[in-house]
């Protein structure tokens, strides 16, 4: 490690804040537009659909019917809340199994009538809790991954803030996965990674850099399809401009997807995820078996 090799007498200077951490703070900025802000700005006639018809209505997940430039579509996004009271009620944006099941129910509803699906994601992760485990958080996420891979309509997922692990992926097995410029998409939070790998939660900045989870890095690793520029300094500096930038990209991608036959679309979606993140080489067989 770098600091071990440095001479003992070196003056202690605060290490520069890694860019990944700057982006993390931007992605989590409290003034940043949330999924519902994009839904309200970019879509018309939004009509919310509540509940998973099995257990309840997750306050951390919104889904419904809407129109995109006049076209009927389904929209889904998690809800974070602005005031402290609302944030607590919405579990800081972390959905429970019934949230994922509601999302899937609305996706299947859109599929039935041939309408495209848009999802917007800004969550730290699926809710870790006693009830979530009792009601099968793992199963709910797994089911969404499998079913999204074979939805017979165009799907576009956009990470607008934090893309937190399986909880984010459960809305992002899509034809197009987009990330805004100052967002992150990661298998674990930097805090979680620091406390597990460094056994020290204060190493979160190092963990942030090591995880290579900024939009630029994730794109370079081939794990998202496109990165959307943000207004100078981040989406919160000029939300109207941010909405326009996202609108432009979504329009573009939807047009491209709708120009293909559904069979081609499904084949391309399958090929993308079948061949994603192939980070291995073929070496000798180590097994002595």
């Amino acid at each position, binding site marked *: 490690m770098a600091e071990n090799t440095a001479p003992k007498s070196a003056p202690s200077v605060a290490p520069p804040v890694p860019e990944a951490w700057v982006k993390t703070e931007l992605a989590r900025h409290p003034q940043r537009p949330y999924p519902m802000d994009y839904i309200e700005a970019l879509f018309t006639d939004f009509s919310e659909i509540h509940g998973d018809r099995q257990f309840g209505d997750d306050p951390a997940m919104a889904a419904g019917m809407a129109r995109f430039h006049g076209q009927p579509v389904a929209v889904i996004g998690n809800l974070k809340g602005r005031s402290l009271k609302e944030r607590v009620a919405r579990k800081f944006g972390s959905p429970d199994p019934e949230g994922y099941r509601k999302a899937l129910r609305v996706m299947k509803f859109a599929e039935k009538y041939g309408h495209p699906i848009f999802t917007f994601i800004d969550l730290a992760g699926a809710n870790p809790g006693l009830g979530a485990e009792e009601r099968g958080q793992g199963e709910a*996420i797994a089911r969404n991954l499998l079913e999204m891979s074979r939805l017979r309509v165009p799907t576009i997922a956009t990470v607008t803030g934090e893309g937190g692990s399986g909880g984010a*992926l459960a809305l992002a097995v899509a034809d197009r996965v987009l990330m805004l410029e100052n967002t992150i998409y990661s298998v674990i939070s930097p805090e979680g990674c620091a406390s597990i790998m460094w056994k020290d939660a204060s190493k979160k900045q190092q963990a942030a850099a090591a995880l290579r989870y900024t939009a630029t890095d994730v794109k370079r690793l081939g794990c998202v399809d496109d990165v959307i520029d943000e207004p100078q300094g981040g989406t919160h500096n000029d939300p109207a401009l941010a909405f326009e930038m996202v609108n432009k990209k979504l329009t573009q991608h939807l047009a491209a997807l709708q120009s293909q036959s559904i069979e081609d679309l499904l084949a391309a979606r399958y090929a993308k995820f079948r061949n994603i993140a192939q980070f291995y080489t073929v070496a000798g067989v180590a097994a002595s078996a």
Partner: protein
Amino acid sequence: MTWFKRDDNEIQPNDDHEVKTEGLWVKCPGCRKTIWKADIDANLQVCPNCGHHFKFSARERIENLLEPGFELVDLDLVSTDPLEFTDLKPYKSRLAQTQKKTGLNDAIINAVGRMGDLDVILSVMEYGFIGGSMGAVVGETITRAADRALESRRPLIVVSASGGARMQEGIASLMQLAKVSSVLAKLDDAKIPYISLITDPTYGGVTASFAMLGDLNIAEPGALIGFAGPRVIEQTIRQKLPEGFQRSEFLLEHGFLDAIVERKDLKSYLAQSLKWMTEKA
């Protein structure tokens, strides 16, 4: 002033008289009895007293489930360390060390062979390899097992044992959930049987993908299975978790397991279920 005095202060250990007992006896976490290790070894790593299931290695599992003459396949993939990840130690050196220790390239073994009179594809995770965590190699290897099942129309069985996605491969490991789930959708469309056997422990991204996607999801008794780890949940809800939380029996009670099957009965259970699924009327 001392009552006794010893002239030679050195006590010389006599190696000849040493009796080596280390590793010969095991304290069973189930019944807290001390059990003769050889008895456990002879009983499929299950406590002969209380039936506690000790961990089974991937190789032991394959030998237990398949008839002799099976073939191990897809063993040659090695992670390329896509993030060039370093925490307290470089990921590359962790990998090299574990590869040397386990004789495996990663936390998974695929096998092709017969179970009773049925040809099957078996993919088994090895918990002893970085906590059975799933990175690009594990994801690709399970997908290859599913590809083999698709091509040959043979049933697929995946045995999971994993802490979840492999942090050191970051977003690349998260994508493996999507990859494996996509190929399982293909298997489902093609009506090729897939059974998920969940073993102790299975968490995180593995629970949130293929472990929960079987035509049948079954587990061994007492296995810890969950999405979030118990410590994370306790920190979040700030209360103690109930006894037996996230054990197989807890999942069965809440409707997320189809059956709990003891290790000695697994092979016949699997063979019988697969027969039920594949037999033409």
